[in-house]
């Protein structure tokens, strides 16, 4: 996205292509509609992402921005078709579902880890995200076991402090 904002066509192309499956999954999960309708919405969202990319704030999560556009396009689509949606379904649409939360969380974790020194980030990734044991992680990272433990400990502490700061 950042590359696309700077006017790099290849980065922009890659971004839009990467969004295709995400958006298709987003609309399929909510619409139970015909494939053409879903593809129309996906395309409209891509056009909006392209034309209105100035509204993305690089300091905020990209997925929040993307799904806000996708949700708006879906509701606008219903409005245009004059289709009525049962209130229950509508609530589901407005609520961020687990898939969306998971992508948001993934993006957040990646962003947080990027702010740590490489050694700490690698140690956390290996032990906490991939679920390796300290022994396995130490072998993969070519570090001593105590070094891995200390890195994980320091890294998590730094992350906790960072998260606390942003919540204040």
């Amino acid at each position, binding site marked *: 996205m950042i590359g696309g904002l700077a006017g790099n066509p290849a980065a*922009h192309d890659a971004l839009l*292509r990467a969004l*295709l499956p995400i958006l298709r999954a987003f609309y399929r999960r909510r619409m139970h509609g015909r494939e053409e309708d879903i593809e129309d919405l996906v395309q409209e969202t891509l056009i*909006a992402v392209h034309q*209105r990319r100035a509204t993305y704030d690089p300091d905020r999560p990209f997925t929040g*921005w993307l799904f806000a556009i996708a949700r708006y396009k879906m509701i*606008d689509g219903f409005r245009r078709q004059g289709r009525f949606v049962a209130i229950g379904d509508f609530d589901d649409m407005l609520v961020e579902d687990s898939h969306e939360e998971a992508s948001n969380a993934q993006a957040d974790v990646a962003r947080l880890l990027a702010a740590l020194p490489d050694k700490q980030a690698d140690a956390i990734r290996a032990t906490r995200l991939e679920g390796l044991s300290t022994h396995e992680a130490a072998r993969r990272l070519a570090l001593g076991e105590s070094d891995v433990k200390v890195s994980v400990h320091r890294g998590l502490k730094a992350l906790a402090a960072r998260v606390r700061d942003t919540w204040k």
Partner: protein
Amino acid sequence: MEMNSEDLIATLAQDVRPLRRHALARRLLAGLLAGGVATALIVGCALGFRPDLWLAMHGSPFWVKWIYTASLALCATRATASLARPDTPRMGWMWIMVVPVLGLVAISMAELAEAPPAQWLAMWLGGSWKVCSSLVLLLSLPIFGGLLWSFRRLAPTRLRLAGATAGLSAGAWGATLYCLHCPEVSAIFVLTWYSLGIALASLLGAALGPRLLRW
């Protein structure tokens, strides 16, 4: 003919002009400025700047008016910028706009307390109460138009609220420019008739928002 999504992406990716930093703010500012220039021209050419403008700028009533309208305008513009993004952050801070209003209420009360009651009506109605609010509304229109142009590349998702803040912003900036013409001095006049004009502009924006800001 339906285009398939891969072709669409290829077409879109060919047209990526680099965005400058703060592209959203620039876009809004451009719309505001274009509308503001048009409004300033109307004030200057059709209504005329008040002849004692220079003198008035040395007195406090002028600045009370200006600070009131400009602070509302700044808050409303800030809110409009937030609502121009699809993932709008919380808007609770907008309540800070009651501060200038309450401030002007306090100044009005103080002025009335000092004046003999026989003058109260004259202070409230001034010489132009019949036209003041409609002129503020009229002067807001070019600015509102400029903001509508800005929004063509922006992505509001709460259209009524975005329309309302755009209208509020246009109304308050319009009123700020109207100060260059209007010779009224009492705070209670500004509190009533300026605020009424600004509120009308905001209502108009809220009414038109869902229709004009759709994308």
